[in-house]
């Protein structure tokens, strides 16, 4: 199993797409930070000062940490979906799935080793996102406040940062499992990418509609992935254009709902992969 996880990580490391995604991640962070800074530095004439203050907070420590993790989750979900689905789905297209399974026949082992490699990749990806965001926030804090003040950095705040790191990963983990499931289901990268991203965008639109509908329809978002991920993430204005709106469930409720999704996605993936013939 360890050898297989190593092989999966080796494949990810050697793939250009992996590095391109990290560059896209960095570019997206630069775009978010510099675009917001641009607005705060030279705001539109009619923009009131009270609207500018929260925007400045997004770019300055300590709130900048929330911006970093929220951005990492939002853009990370899209980039990880592409990496995960193409990594799983292309194995069918290239015929490498057969080559692997005729060497070690364990079907569960195959799926779990891929999952383990994606977990490692996601954990490293969040650290990279954190590093990029931290460097950008150092600049923007300096530009906006003129000096850096680390008084907020207590032991308990460091603990909070680790918790934010964990919740960000948890949110990404659900999308990793969904991308694996759809890629295995469709035996293709396109199905995995299209299905997962399609769900990601459609859900955000649907949630807005449900929230405006009221009644029992307004309850539906409480059972959806994106809405619950928003509930476990640090709340900031920079949760991206597709962040869920409306009243959010509690962190405990959201984490249980997401946990159920994880179990179902993984369970169905393992069941399907175990049962199906490999004919690609």
């Amino acid at each position, binding site marked *: 199993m360890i*050898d*297989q996880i*190593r*092989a999966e990580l*080796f*494949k990810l490391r*050697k*793939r*250009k797409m992996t590095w391109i995604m990290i560059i896209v991640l960095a570019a997206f962070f630069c775009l978010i930070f510099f675009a917001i800074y641009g607005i705060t530095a030279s705001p539109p004439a009619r923009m009131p000062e009270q609207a500018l203050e929260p925007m400045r907070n997004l770019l300055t420590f300590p709130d900048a940490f929330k911006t970093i993790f929220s951005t990492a989750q939002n853009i990370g979900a899209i980039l990880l979906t592409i990496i995960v689905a193409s990594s799983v789905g292309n194995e069918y297209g*290239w*015929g*490498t*799935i*057969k*080559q*692997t*399974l*005729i*060497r*070690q*026949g*364990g079907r569960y082992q195959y799926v779990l080793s891929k999952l383990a490699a994606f977990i490692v990749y996601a954990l490293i990806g969040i650290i990279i996102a954190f590093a990029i965001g931290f460097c950008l926030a150092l600049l923007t804090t300096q530009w906006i406040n003129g000096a850096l003040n680390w008084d907020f950095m207590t032991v308990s705040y460091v603990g909070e940062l680790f918790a934010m790191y964990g919740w960000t990963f948890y949110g990404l983990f659900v999308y990793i499992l969904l991308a694996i499931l759809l890629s295995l289901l469709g035996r293709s990268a396109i199905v995995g990418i299209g299905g997962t991203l399609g769900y990601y965008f459609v859900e955000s639109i649907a949630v807005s509609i449900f929230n405006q509908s009221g009644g029992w329809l307004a309850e539906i978002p409480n059972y959806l992935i994106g809405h619950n991920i928003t509930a476990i993430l640090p709340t900031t204005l920079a949760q991206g254009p597709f962040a869920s709106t409306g009243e959010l469930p509690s962190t405990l409720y959201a984490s249980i709902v997401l946990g159920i999704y994880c179990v179902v996605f993984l369970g169905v993936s393992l069941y399907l992969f175990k*049962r199906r*013939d*490999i*004919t690609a």
Partner: protein
Amino acid sequence: MTINDLVVRTEHLTKHYGKLVAVSDLNLEVHRGQVFGFLGPNGAGKSTTMSMILGLIAPTSGNIEIFGLSVKNHLADILCGTGAVMENPGFYPYLSGWDNLKIFASISCNVTDNRIKEVLTLVDLADRAQDKFSGYSQGMKQRLAIAGALIHDPEFIVLDEPTNGLDPAGMKEIRELIIRLGREGKTIFLNSHLLHEVEQVCDHVAIIRKGKVVAAGATDDLIKRGGTLQIQVTDADKAVLLLEAEGWISSVTRQGELLILKVPVNRAVDISALLAKNGVFISEMKTRDDSLESIFLELTEEEAIDRPDKS
């Protein structure tokens, strides 16, 4: 041959895809050290059988044992001693030949970097090992697949069309490699459309049609079994009548004073006795072995009427 010599044994192996029967009640035995040719027209069930042997496809019913172990329950142990080249072998296009083998070596049993070098040299790819797989020619891809199959020095090797895409020189090299592996005591299960190739390298063959074995045995026996006898007799008219009445003779053709009999050549004595008993004497008898190709075509032609075993 003892049961311990058995490398592959399938019992009543059957695979259905909905209403389509891909493999039906297939019983095969491949013994240690055999170079076993598995023949059949397209869609006969060869690749499905190979995939079932390798655990990629689950049988609808029946059992497969490799090295005496059930594929269903001991697949990992079986694959440790098994190497395979599948049709259209897949590799990661963005990796070099070396990196591809390195990945597959890491999940195979006991493979060192030296072994990777060895197999790359064996298939004449050592110089191109660092080139990306996507830049390889079809022949190079096939040779890399063979290297991949041999990387963990398996005892049992499954080859599905291993000379696909190779030029004549490459085909000859692979043919010689298969013969050499056979001499080294490896058991080889070879699926090839190139019957001449199978005839040259395989000591045993099975021919399947529509998922069923229609002939199996030692290659030499099979060729002899489907051979032709040419005889000259004292009374050709009477001989034709006598021979045509025998169910185990496929055909009797008269060419002047000569009779051409489609018959297992190992039954020449029976023919001689039959004719002599009826007062017809043979003045000349010649045997002519058919090629594997003609036997294959005879047994697998779609329009052919199934005949009872005439051996």
